[in-house]
């Protein structure tokens, strides 16, 4: 099927072949203009984070060696304990990744290749969860997790609502669906149990789907603001996004260069996911999501 072709070629290189140069020139012009709009704020954020005095003039777009400093980074680090905040973000993210891979793979596998009672109901449930966003349940979740179970200022409290990423479950399912049925039947006939079939046949094949889901899942908790903001009151438990937001609202005003120290924080928060995506960019395709999309 077409999705299989997509998988093997890497989503982008396929499609209508366009060799004529005039079209491609227009393409490149559109793409280049867009890329400037998309990348400029990142560039400007880095430049601004190194400015000793905030330079909002036109020439401030370029780096000026005499106006460069690392003070902004030192100030935000002193105010929010950056390594600690980054550690909190990492624990939060790792907890979610671990649960999603472990339980999400099991669920995605079962939903795709196993036949059991209630599967159809559960599938509709997954779709519903994808449509109803977590934010609309913030009040009862807060009542239950923070007030009821007393999990405020704990990693568990942060992780719980995000523990298994439903989009990842969906990606896993779509991937396993694409594998030929005969594969699983052969393994079953050979006497491999379901667990064996999954571990030895399906999961090794699913590596691209797993990588894709890991990337997608990673940016969820790493970038999440609202929920950890509700859960953490103690600063030493706050993930970086929360610590930075609080710094922007309450502390930055007293910094030597408030804009600069805010942006220094922004750079630190942005680096991990951006680097991760630069490394694994090729593997990040929505071929799996897409196969669920086509009509």
């Amino acid at each position, binding site marked *: 099927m077409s999705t299989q072709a997509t998988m093997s070629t890497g989503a982008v290189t396929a499609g209508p072949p366009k060799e004529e140069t005039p079209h491609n020139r227009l393409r490149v012009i559109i793409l280049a203009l867009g890329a400037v709009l998309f990348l400029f704020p990142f560039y400007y954020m880095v430049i601004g984070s190194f400015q000793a005095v905030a330079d909002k003039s036109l020439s401030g777009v370029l780096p000026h060696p005499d106006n460069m400093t690392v003070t902004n980074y030192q100030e935000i680090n002193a105010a929010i304990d950056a390594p600690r905040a980054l550690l909190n973000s990492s624990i939060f993210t790792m907890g979610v990744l671990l649960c999603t891979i472990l339980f999400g793979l099991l669920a995605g596998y079962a939903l795709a290749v196993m036949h*059991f009672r209630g599967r*159809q109901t559960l599938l509709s449930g997954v779709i519903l969860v994808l*449509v109803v966003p977590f934010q609309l349940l913030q009040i009862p*979740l807060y009542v239950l997790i923070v007030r009821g179970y007393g999990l405020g200022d704990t990693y568990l409290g942060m992780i719980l609502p995000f523990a298994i990423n439903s989009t990842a479950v969906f990606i896993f399912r779509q991937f396993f669906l694409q594998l030929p049925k005969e594969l699983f039947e052969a393994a079953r006939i050979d006497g491999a149990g379901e667990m064996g079939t999954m571990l030895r046949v399906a999961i090794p094949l699913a590596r691209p789907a797993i990588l894709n889901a890991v990337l997608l899942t990673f940016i969820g908790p790493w970038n999440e603001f609202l929920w950890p903001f509700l859960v953490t009151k103690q600063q030493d438990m706050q993930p970086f996004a929360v610590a930075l937001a609080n710094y922007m609202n309450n502390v930055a005003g007293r910094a030597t260069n408030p804009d600069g120290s805010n942006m220094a924080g922004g750079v630190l928060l942005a680096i991990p996911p951006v680097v991760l995506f630069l490394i694994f960019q090729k593997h990040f395709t929505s071929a799996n999501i897409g196969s669920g999309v086509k009509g």
Partner: protein
Amino acid sequence: MTTTSGVTGPSTEADPEETTGPARKERWIGRQPLGLLFVLPYVIFLAFIFVYPLIVQFFISFKDYFFAAPGATVERPWVGLQNYGDVLQDPTFQRSIFNVFEFLIINVPATVALSLVLAYALNAKIRGLWFFRGAYYAPYVTASVAIVTVWLFMFGETGLVNTVLGPLAPDPSWLINKNWAMPMIAVFVTWKQLGFFILLYLAALQNVPKELYEAADVDGASTMDKFWSVTVPGVRPATTLVVILATITGMNLFTEPYLLTNGGGPNGASVTPVFYMYQKGIEQGQAGYAAAIGMILLFITLLIALIQRRLLERD
């Protein structure tokens, strides 16, 4: 395909061994009942994080439920539909709904048009493709909180944008101007989420049959003709998804009004329902009132998603 094993239908339709003993058992618990065990952790998770909170929210919304000091026992009487009535008459809530629609009117068409055009442009063998793809995904993978820092810097009173615009700059500046605050949030979110929607369209473009382009070539169609008559209808299912997902994202803005426009300012011009729900429920401790907002929003979200699906999938 003969062995779909129930991928499309709820169960095996015409199993020859249906009447025998084991088959009956199979029909009851399924051919691989172990699957139940496999999905159990996920089912427990959904029950605990989705179903149960939904029920709790439903009940709280009918009570005068507020947060008291820990340990104190307080009465939280049933008040029937009073919370709902109050919410619907609350001018700030009405304003937040109006703001969301203002947001959606800008964000959804812009998202669909820009992500489709950029995906179409990216869907070719050109040099530096990896660079372009990376550029478009960068805002999507970065935290809103991080990007807000530079937007505040650029769009401030004396920021770079106003410096460039000179006398054309709006007064008061963008983020503190009541006419510009919400459109600015719409632009921010469009820009930030575009990479994700480009990704969806890129995948959808792979499924447009090449023969259609070839047939259009034979008919002497121009690039524009092909875009409108082959590509746009070809990615229709993806467009449905993009519209629904963009709408859902737009209904649930919190970080942007909280940080970019300093708490839904100026003067409530960029208050969003989720931000208001947070203010009422968490800041002011009126959980019952906030729960009613949550239920109303849930209803609106599902309704809009349903209507959009009907409209866009009508053929």
